[in-house]
């Protein structure tokens, strides 16, 4: 009985959602019947455009840029795994009005190209509704937004129209044309509900692939916990032991691990570690000898972040270190 009532509740919820945004009749036609049907699509799209555009962001990290979409007032962002490229990366998001906010990537699924990021600045931010109920069907009219080729304030995010032309398990295909820079950007139904995230294209203009929202729902909790999922082609997993701090140390007579050398342009130098510093804690764990330190470091990968507390002139100083490639 319990299961049944839960199912009923779910059905009611879907029904309520569907009632709030009744399915557009034109979506159930093989092809629009004429100008009134075309106007129905246009009117819905124009109504959905301002809010969806406000929530569409350009994501810049390193030398590249992609797109993303904000889905909560606090600033949770959905994007593509091949845009964030990893967990805990620093990203700058450019909002529609050109203002920049700091973000950090959360988890990702390297097999399906799903990824999350969160804005670190304080909200509220403009956001869109996510179609968690998976209400879209083959042939539905949809629109895509994205910062094609990078952020361009004069232009804004370009909007493109199309239909869902192919639906597979982990991919949906539309004929909304995408290009570099759109990656991670949103695909919407005509009510402005998020139904997919731009992932990749084929050489044919019809081949524009999106990650369906159901794949995000499937990986949701793990992504929120900043997990790196899968071993797919969309992001490379950090290799344990590839992280490099770049110092030489000795076990000093006072029972401390003392820094004797700091490598040029090493992670330690960038964090302003000095010769003579005594390393006393890494990520909250006490360090009493070199072996204890090595044990922690050998599980770390390039770009991992560490909190290292050193003793310098009798004072404890916390250094934020980002490991480099060995």
């Amino acid at each position, binding site marked *: 009985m319990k299961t049944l009532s839960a199912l009923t509740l779910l059905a009611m919820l879907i029904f309520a959602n569907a009632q709030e945004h009744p399915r557009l009749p034109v979506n159930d036609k*093989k*092809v*629009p*019947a*004429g*100008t009134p*049907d*075309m*106007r129905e*699509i*246009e009117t819905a*799209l*124009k109504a959905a*455009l301002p809010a969806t555009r406000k929530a569409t962001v350009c994501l810049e990290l390193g*030398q*590249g*840029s*992609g797109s993303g979409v904000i889905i909560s007032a606090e600033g949770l962002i959905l994007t593509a795994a091949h*845009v964030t490229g990893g967990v805990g990366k620093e990203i700058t998001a450019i909002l529609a009005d050109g203002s920049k906010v700091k973000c950090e990537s959360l988890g990702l699924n390297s097999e399906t190209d799903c990824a999350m990021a969160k804005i670190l600045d304080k909200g509220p931010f403009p956001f869109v509704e996510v179609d968690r109920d998976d209400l879209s069907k*083959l*042939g539905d009219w949809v*629109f895509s937004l994205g910062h*094609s*080729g*990078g*952020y*361009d304030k004069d*232009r*804004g995010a*370009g*909007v*493109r*129209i*199309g*239909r*869902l*032309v*192919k*639906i*597979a*398990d*982990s*991919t949906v295909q539309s004929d*909304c*044309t*995408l*290009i*570099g*820079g*759109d*990656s*991670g950007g949103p695909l919407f139904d005509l009510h402005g509900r998020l139904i997919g995230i731009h*992932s*990749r*294209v084929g050489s044919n*203009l019809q*081949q524009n*692939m999106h990650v369906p929202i159901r794949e995000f729902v499937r990986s949701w909790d793990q992504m929120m916990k900043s997990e790196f999922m899968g071993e797919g*082609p*969309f992001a490379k997993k950090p290799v344990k032991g590839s992280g490099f701090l770049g110092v030489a140390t000795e076990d000093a007579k006072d029972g401390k691990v003392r820094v004797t050398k700091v490598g040029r342009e090493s992670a330690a130098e960038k964090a302003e570690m000095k010769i003579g510093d005594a390393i006393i804690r890494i990520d909250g764990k006490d360090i009493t000898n070199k072996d204890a330190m090595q044990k922690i470091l050998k599980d770390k990968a390039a770009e991992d972040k560490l909190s290292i507390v050193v003793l310098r002139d009798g004072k404890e100083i916390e250094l934020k270190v980002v490991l480099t490639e060995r």
Partner: protein
Amino acid sequence: MKAHSFFALFFTITTAVQAFDTLESEFRTNGNMMHAVVTRAQQSLQEFSAVIYEGRKEAGYGIVASEEGYILGKLSELKPLKEIKIRVGDQEFSPVALVAEDVRWDVALLKIDAKGLKPAVFAETSDIGQGSWVVANGATSRSERRPMVGILSANFREIRVEGGAVLGIELKEDKEKIIVGNLPEISGAFKAGIRQGDIIVSLGGKKMKNRAAIAEFMKDRRVGEKLEVSYIRDGKEQKAEVELAGRADTYGIEKSRNDTMSGDVSKRRSGFPRVLQHDVQGTSKTVGGPLVDLDGKCIGMNIARANRAESFAIPVEELREISQRLLEEARKK
């Protein structure tokens, strides 16, 4: 646009075997079944768009500007063509004469020997809002224009020329003199009579001290602008009027990763004072014709296929002015 590299989308399709449902191609956004949906737009394309051929090959489109046979087209695509023929409706016309041009907007006015053509019906405004349906020429048959649909995609804006406007001269500096080095024959400077070895004195009446000063001065210049260049040859100061061209037009475009996924784009796709952006999926051979709304009114002229996701049109407000100006110029001759 900024010059950093972008996350390119993956260029391959997942080959994993998956069950999937597919929408038949005729029902897709630009499938055959859509032609009957936009009948008024198609009728307009049929009446006032011109198909331009080089020999038997389709080379572009045009807009009928007057009933006595004046046709607007994309200048940079048309100029190099030999043996132009034009079809309006199912009638074919030749010879075709180029009678006036606007380099800044890249618009040509052509003349054919015709009477009683239906000129384009211009809309009041092109400001019909992003997300509005628009229709343009796709493929064509002898008698029938085939419509392709899309929507207005982005803000009206200027498209600054890729790489900036250039004189088309390689400059050398020697003992505080700026000396003209290599210059391609298609460059504005060569056409104005400047040659290798000339010494540049001033641009637009301003003395130029060195190459850096010239680079700074050129930053704010526009394609199509005419610039007075003073130079010394054989000890004598001379003047030339140089028409500026885009860097890409003079030296060619370096293909970006995004270009490699865009297919056949227009050679000249930048340096327009104001454009409407839309997502009708054309090629370099589908521009030059009208962009119409669902009522079949002309809201602009397709002037460039920029990349996979972006097409540009001259808004009807400017198009009307360009058309009138070129027609007056041609009729005076």
